[in-house]
């Protein structure tokens, strides 16, 4: 431990990215002409200069030990001049100037257990969150769900045979760290009981902040033992957990009632249609670690029905909009329930406001 000997440094910001750029990238920065997809997980960008940079992409669990990171560093040294990057979906990318190294790198990655793929019309890595690994709010474990689902759709990562990109996300509570709200398929941890107010509340929480935190106004001021406290109007609570976020004395976790909901049809790209929110497909599935079979089954079902019925280039949401939601429920066999009908602020705008009906 030597740090304390040095003068204290603050506000230096992140390292400049240029330091980490492959020389070929530095040379052709902003001068790329087009790209080609050579194989699942492998693509090649061709510069105006004619230079070519080859990318090999591998899946990771995102949660990585330093041991594994060192292995990746070693692979980079061996194959890509020490240059590598991570993607916005937690995949690993090696940047090669020599196409001959692609296959050996792939082989080594696969041997180490890191699948190559995730490009183009594949299922890429699942964007996810902390879950029971590190977060206080989580209704489920994110990493575990990701592992189970990716095991089940593994071939969709290593192949590019879907109609379009399919992006899955997991978030362990309604805070939705990640992009669950705009994913082709989203798995969302949910609570289903109101917070259990703890007696410590008056000591540890700011009551006005707490009251203001409830989106439905379910939290009312109340006096407990002569102190300012709160009461929860249970019928008005929809279990969002925002009260818990601001006040530790409002815990939500409940082994029997926490579980998962499944959402579909979101996207963020502007390609073709505008970005869309994910919509509710299944309101509740039980938390069944370690393998969450119900969740895996539901996701696989959606993927397979989509793969079978969507047209080329159609994202999940675009496909469903074309065929209509009634057909989506028919094809997947998912039950349509009262929970699917919005009853929050803009609910009325989600009602079917035309006589357009399919039979």
């Amino acid at each position, binding site marked *: 431990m030597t740090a304390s000997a040095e003068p204290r440094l603050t506000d230096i910001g992140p390292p400049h990215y240029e330091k980490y750029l492959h020389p070929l990238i530095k040379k052709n920065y902003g001068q790329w002409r087009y790209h080609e997809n050579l194989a699942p997980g492998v693509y090649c960008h061709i510069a105006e200069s004619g230079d070519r940079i080859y990318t090999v992409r591998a899946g990771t669990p995102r949660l990585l030990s330093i041991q594994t990171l060192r292995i990746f560093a070693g692979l980079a040294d061996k194959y890509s001049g020490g240059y590598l990057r991570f993607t916005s979906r937690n995949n690993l990318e090696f940047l090669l100037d020599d196409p001959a190294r692609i296959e050996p790198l792939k082989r080594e990655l696969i041997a180490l257990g890191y699948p190559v793929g995730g490009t183009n019309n594949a299922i890429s890595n699942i964007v996810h969150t902390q879950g029971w690994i590190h977060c206080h709010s989580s209704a489920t474990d994110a990493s575990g769900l990701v592992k189970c689902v990716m095991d089940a759709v593994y071939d969709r990562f290593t192949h590019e045979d879907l109609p379009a990109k399919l992006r899955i996300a997991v978030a362990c509570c309604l805070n939705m760290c990640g992009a669950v709200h705009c994913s082709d398929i989203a798995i969302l941890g949910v609570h289903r009981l109101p917070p259990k107010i703890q007696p410590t509340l008056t000591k*540890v*929480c700011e*009551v*006005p*902040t707490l009251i203001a935190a409830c989106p439905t106004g379910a939290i009312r001021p109340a006096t407990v033992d002569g102190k300012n406290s709160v009461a929860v109007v249970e019928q008005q609570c929809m279990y969002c957990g925002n009260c818990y976020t*601001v006040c530790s004395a409002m815990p939500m976790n409940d082994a029997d009632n926490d579980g998962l909901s499944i959402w579909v049809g979101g996207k963020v790209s502007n390609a073709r249609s505008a970005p869309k929110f994910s919509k509710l497909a299944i309101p509740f599935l039980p938390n069944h670690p370690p393998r969450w079979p119900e969740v895996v089954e539901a996701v696989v079902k959606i993927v397979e029905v989509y793969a079978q019925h969507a047209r080329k280039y159609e994202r999940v949401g675009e496909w469903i909009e074309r065929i209509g939601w009634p057909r989506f429920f028919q094809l997947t066999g998912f039950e349509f329930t009262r929970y699917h009908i919005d009853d929050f602020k803009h609910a009325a705008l989600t009602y079917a406001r035309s006589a357009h009906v399919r039979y």
Partner: protein
Amino acid sequence: MPVFEINGKSYEVDEDGFLQEPERWNHEVATDFAGTEAITNLTEEHWKVIDYIRNYYLEFGMAPMIRKLCKETGHKLSEIYNLFPSGPAKGACKLAGLPKPAGCV
């Protein structure tokens, strides 16, 4: 519940060292806690900030928002960090005997 001991006194605190007995607070308590937040000496400037936060809390039941704190004490945010190196939330609010603030200051 953890306990913070100093000069023979002991205070109930949470893991982060925030006082859990709001009614016990006074200037002496603040002085006792100062060392935990890398402050050696509480100056008048410190008291101005601490008292403002304390009074705001007593009136409104919560910590003031950061812009309000700066406006009312006349300090720039960087100056507050100079006074309270661990910052307004962790440092100043702790010394003012508030519960752990919920993201405001």
